[in-house]
């Protein structure tokens, strides 16, 4: 039996829709809302989506289930009046310097207030000005533009499982904040930027590095080269009204040459290089019994997340740098000679779909001893789009040009890196012969493609198990299983952003699901139309090995293309000082009370340690602190006494060490 709901007196077939709002969309009525996102939980905070239901009065359409025969009116006098009042109240407290706002053209508040024909705002401002968070390398948070819809808070918690930001305060004081009102740079934010991507206004935006880019371009002594990540080419066109499936690669290169970039290269070239290095690293681990699964390490948000949350898995991460950083290292090594320029005058600008790349290029390990960073400036797709506009380039009409050689030549393997599953597929194409994986003629490995948050594939007669995850909550759940020994894989690909890099937060603001799908499809099409599909076929990669790197995973390759990871605290103060002495030469005692050490009895060790110190009045000789995680969770409880790190600590042993340290000092 078909069920119907009447929206504005017209029958609408009710199938799977969980709320009136979705049903109304099916009936081609776009009910305004800030806080409803189909991927996130229903929140009902903004109250904009109010409709009138016969017999019930005003209800929020996002959180009201339809029933058979329900009669809904979406624009009664009362509904329209109410919506206007809500938007007016939001505007009264909104920083309205719209012309200076980077979200001016895609702001939902501006759009909705326009749609609702709001003229004069009848209310005065009641909230006080709050300071803007400029601390992060990637994002800027401006609470004065916040409409408190909570989209960012829910994305960070529900999709990424981080919860770096949440609502704080109450009533007039309520605001979205990091813990203790700190800057995003000081807390566990991984810089994925999805908060900015879902923000309906300019309350969280990508930090602009456009001025630095212009300065470099305008400096005649500098040679400015660009690398463009694969995912950029399938989204940049959106900023110029071109359909999402327009391949804008050639136009993009041309526009950037007009802007003044001296050379324009393709990060996909470095992705090909990543494939060769990472596949060889994997093959070595697999054949020599090294740490498995190998986790991909291209995504800087995932890397920071792992460093914060899964210290015990850090040895599993591929030591390969991301394509951005591989490109930077090779560029700074080779281009000075090739382009006849001083290394200090060479500026590498990367164009990325990603906000976290700004943080990645500033990691200290990617600046070499001479103080020159491998990548100088990381811009997002949004920013290069804005630069093209600033330069007045008619993007739609510009005639396409090709990437420069040698670092502009890539195979399809490097291009599909932009999609979730792409890295795995590229590595498989490389390693197919080695593992006897049958590769279809069109070289498409359907097993790792798709949209679901966790995809698993078993290949090579069960010899090769692969997992592909995107979204950090999915990654966390998978890692928990791996740590607990409940799941085993050979390769795990992790991308922090849903959909992979094509869904990155540096891309133009996504308005529809179709837009996301089109980007993914277009990138796969790009692979199809390229002459080569396997990284090992790229002649310029061969040339690079011949001239510089010798062979995959060589000493030189390790110096330029590999890196190491370290455990990172979630918040800069997550160590709890318990007792501090005042003697000059004090011994530091750290007892880990993280979950796995706690379960193994670290709490008892800490309590007894304190007791021992107190009973003997040794307090002045020791600084005692409780910490979380000294990285070796599998060897807990972990205790540090002075410079000794003790794994599987036992009380008697710790007591003995402390007594020795004290005896030395009492003398």
């Amino acid at each position, binding site marked *: 039996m078909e069920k119907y709901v009447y929206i504005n007196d017209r029958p609408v077939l009710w199938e799977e829709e969980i709320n009136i709002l979705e049903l109304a969309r099916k009936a081609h009525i776009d009910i305004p809302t800030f806080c409803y996102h189909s991927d996130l939980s229903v929140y009902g905070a903004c109250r904009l989506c109010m409709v009138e239901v016969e017999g019930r009065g005003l209800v929020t359409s996002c959180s009201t289930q339809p029933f058979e025969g329900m009669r809904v009116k979406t624009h009664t006098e009362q509904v329209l009046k109410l919506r206007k009042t809500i938007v007016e109240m939001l505007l009264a407290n909104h920083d309205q310097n719209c012309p200076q706002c980077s979200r001016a053209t895609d702001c939902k508040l501006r759009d909705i207030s326009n749609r609702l024909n709001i003229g004069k705002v009848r209310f005065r401002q009641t909230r006080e000005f709050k300071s803007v968070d400029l601390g992060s390398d990637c994002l800027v948070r401006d609470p004065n533009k916040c409409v408190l819809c909570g989209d960012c808070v829910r994305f960070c918690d529900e999709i990424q499982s981080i919860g770096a930001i949440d609502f704080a305060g109450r009533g007039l004081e309520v605001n979205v*904040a990091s813990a203790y009102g700190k800057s995003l740079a000081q807390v566990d934010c991984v810089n994925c930027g999805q908060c900015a991507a879902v923000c309906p206004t300019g309350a969280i935006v990508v930090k602009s590095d456009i001025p630095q880019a212009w300065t470099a371009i305008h400096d005649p002594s500098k040679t400015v080269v660009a690398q463009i990540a694969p995912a950029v080419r399938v989204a940049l066109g959106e900023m110029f009204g071109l359909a999402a499936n327009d391949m804008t690669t050639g136009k993009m290169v041309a526009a950037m040459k007009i802007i003044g970039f001296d050379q324009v290269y393709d990060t996909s070239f470095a992705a090909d290089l990543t494939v060769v290095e990472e596949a060889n690293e994997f093959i070595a681990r697999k054949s020599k019994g090294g740490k498995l699964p190998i986790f991909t390490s291209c995504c800087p948000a995932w890397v920071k997340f792992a460093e914060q949350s899964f210290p015990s898995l850090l040895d599993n991460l591929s030591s390969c740098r991301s394509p951005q950083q591989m490109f930077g290292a090779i560029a700074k090594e080779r281009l000075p000679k090739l382009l006849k320029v001083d290394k200090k005058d060479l500026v590498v600008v990367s164009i990325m779909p990603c906000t976290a790349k700004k943080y990645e290029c500033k990691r200290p390990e990617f600046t070499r001893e001479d103080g020159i960073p491998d990548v100088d400036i990381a811009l997002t797709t949004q920013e290069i789009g804005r630069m093209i506009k600033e330069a007045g380039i008619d993007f739609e009409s510009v005639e396409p040009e090709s990437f420069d050689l040698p670092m502009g030549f890539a195979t399809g393997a490097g291009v599909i890196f932009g999609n979730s599953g792409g890295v795995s597929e590229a590595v498989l194409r490389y390693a197919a012969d080695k593992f006897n994986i049958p590769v279809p003629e069109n070289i498409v490995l359907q097993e790792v493609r798709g949209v679901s948050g966790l995809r698993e594939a078993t290949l090579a007669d069960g010899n090769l198990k692969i997992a592909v995850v995107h979204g950090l909550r999915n990654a966390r759940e998978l890692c928990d299983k791996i740590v607990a020994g409940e799941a085993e894989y050979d390769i795990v690909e992790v991308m922090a952003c849903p959909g992979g890099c094509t869904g990155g937060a540096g891309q133009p603001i996504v308005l529809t699901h179709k837009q996301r799908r089109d980007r993914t499809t277009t990138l796969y099409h790009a692979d199809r139309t390229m002459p080569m599909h396997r990284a090992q076929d790229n002649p310029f990669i061969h040339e690079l090995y011949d001239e510089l790197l010798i062979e995959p995973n060589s000493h030189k390759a390790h110096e330029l293309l590999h890196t190491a990871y370290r455990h990172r605290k979630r*918040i800069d103060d997550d160590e*709890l000082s318990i007792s501090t002495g005042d003697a000059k030469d004090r011994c530091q005692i750290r007892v880990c009370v993280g979950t796995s050490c706690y379960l193994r009895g670290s709490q008892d060790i800490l309590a007894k340690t304190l007791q021992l110190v107190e009973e003997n009045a040794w*307090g002045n000789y020791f600084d005692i602190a409780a910490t979380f995680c000294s990285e070796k969770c599998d060897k807990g409880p972990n205790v540090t006494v002075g410079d000794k790190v003790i794994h599987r600590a036992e009380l008697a042993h710790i007591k003995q060490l402390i007594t020795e340290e004290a005896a030395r000092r009492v003398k």
Partner: protein
Amino acid sequence: MSTQYSAAHSFNKVMEILDRYDRSENKIIPILQAVQEEYRYLPQEVLTFIATSLGVSPARLYGVATFYSHFSLEPKGKHIIKMCDGTACHVRGSSKVIDAIRDRLKLSAKKITTDDMMYTFETVSCLGACGLAPVLVVDDEIHGQITPEQALALIDKIDAEEKENA
């Protein structure tokens, strides 16, 4: 107990509190109440510690702690004075009492603790004792139908006692 080890004892107490409430996310509020009782406020590093122990994000815990006016992230004075400014108390003249106390202690809506850490004065929304409006609470003792003069007399009394004990 010497002051040198007081932090250690407080920390042991936090561990006890966490254990008593099963380290359960559902018991955030009673845990924070008990911890605040121990420290008289919620120190930042202790909050981070609790968040990690409970498996919630520090930002979420900070949100809970800032939502309820009962919780304080700043150290509080030795004596805590609370004036109800709910509707009933407000219409029966709480503002005058509030002004008088702030004037006397040189405090404001933003600055609620005296420099010598002797007094913290805060307003609360409703104490549920509307029949006694306006209501003042001095160190957990309730004073109904309070006037500005009576309120100042209570502070004088505490001052005198503190002088005597000093």
